[in-house]
């Protein structure tokens, strides 16, 4: 590719190899598509919109993919692009990935998240309800915290509030599972456990929470963590693996101090 400035606009023609699968029970295969005159200013999902409009005009079935906010905060978009969840940009969701990440003539391979716990429903759409069930197993505060209180009424150490806030940035997209060689959900669970364990409101249920969420994670069929740190490398919200160390500490303290 000739050198381009970051802000330079250009158009490109691309070859897309996209996973197509009729439903959860069918086998699926890659389909090859050609898209032309794609603007470097488009988002990756807008490029898919253009492709789908083209397919509809041709009387073909459009490609199914998850999306919602397109602002990088809902965690719905979930494409494995050229061997990386959410594509080549660091700390970016698929919806925030722009076509200037690619060049004219590129071939882009797009696959769904691959994990037994995330079965493919159709094309690039996977079932991530396992994450919902993990949250239901303890990722909340059920004690009565009363009415809204004035700011700073409950003193929280600044360092802890920063760590809790960073952990709370997890959008539950599942990129950590998609990237992990073990299909482990530890980074997701660790972010949710850390977020609440670091705050006084979450302290009351910290033991039952971590035990419940890890048990549900295992039940859903995710693998165990071997600290390859691939999850952190691909996380669009840059959740740190330090949260996994914290989850381990929470789990060991809760499990070993249990009286039942």
């Amino acid at each position, binding site marked *: 590719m000739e050198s381009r400035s970051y802000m330079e606009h250009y158009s490109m023609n691309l070859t897309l190899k996209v996973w197509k699968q009729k439903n959860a029970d069918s086998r699926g295969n890659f389909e090859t598509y050609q898209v032309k005159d794609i603007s470097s200013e488009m988002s990756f999902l807008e490029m898919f919109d253009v492709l789908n409009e083209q397919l509809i005009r041709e009387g073909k079935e459009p490609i199914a993919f998850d999306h919602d906010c397109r602002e990088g905060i809902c965690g719905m978009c979930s494409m494995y692009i050229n061997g990386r969840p959410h594509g080549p940009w660091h700390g970016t969701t698929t919806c925030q990935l722009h076509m200037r990440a690619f060049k004219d003539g590129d071939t882009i391979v797009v696959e769904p998240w691959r994990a037994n716990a995330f079965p493919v429903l159709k094309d690039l759409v996977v079932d991530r309800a396992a994450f919902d069930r993990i949250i239901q197993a303890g990722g909340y505060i059920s004690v009565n915290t009363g009415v809204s209180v004035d700011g700073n009424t409950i003193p929280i150490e600044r360092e802890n509030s920063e760590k809790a806030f960073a952990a709370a940035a997890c959008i539950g997209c599942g990129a950590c599972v998609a990237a992990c060689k073990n299909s482990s959900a530890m980074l997701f669970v660790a972010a949710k456990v850390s977020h609440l364990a670091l705050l006084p409101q979450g302290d009351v249920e910290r033991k039952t929470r971590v035990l419940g969420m890890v048990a549900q994670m295992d039940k859903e069929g995710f*693998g165990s963590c071997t600290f390859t740190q691939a999850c952190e490398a*691909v996380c669009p919200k840059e959740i740190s693996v330090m949260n996994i160390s*914290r989850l381990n500490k929470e789990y060991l303290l*809760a499990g070993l101090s249990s009286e039942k």
Partner: protein
Amino acid sequence: MKWSEFFTSSVGKKLVMALTGLFLISFLVVHAGINACIWANDNGVMFNTAAHFMGSMVVIRVLEVGLFAGILIHIIQGYVLEFSNRSRRKTGYTVSLGNKGSRWYSRSMGLLGTILLLFFIIHWYHFWIPSRFTGVHETPMVLPNSDGKEVHNLYALMKETFSELWVVIVYVFACFSLCWHLVHGFQSAFRTIGVSNQRYLVIARTAGIAFAIIISTVFAMMPVSMYLGWVE
């Protein structure tokens, strides 16, 4: 929470790997320390004395049972986790993430561990089985100030074993595998036991790399020294 639930959870299984791994790391220090006596260049007197002490002390023999239990648990649990984790993705990716997200050795602990297991079998065949069961055929050594007491001449056995080039190559290759296994395993064990303090994790990571390089080099230099005649 029942103990069985704790130790069969994904976190509990990793804890077993971490604790047995750290125990085996402590054994490596003792093993390297004893073997380093070959460099005393005293025709194996210091080494054979140390080896005889380790083989004859009741406490050490009891600890040896614990050592083998630790090795067995580490191997079995390692394979259980490896195969279990592999089964969590029945359909793989066409384009893999590869080195873009993680280091090769962190993804290859099962392979590195298997190489070490194969090496252990050779190593036990060379030294542990003769010293404990089948007997060392080399002429026994009379230790100084021992009233003529004869002990296994493991030093002579080492010299004979490491006179073969292919054996030296196998041992050095195993030490190379051990180094990468430790580079990841050392710091990973501390994360598994819940060290979540950045300051201590930096220490664990740095100490792990230093330990892996030093211990592997010390072990690798033993057959090399013997083969090249650097020790008498």
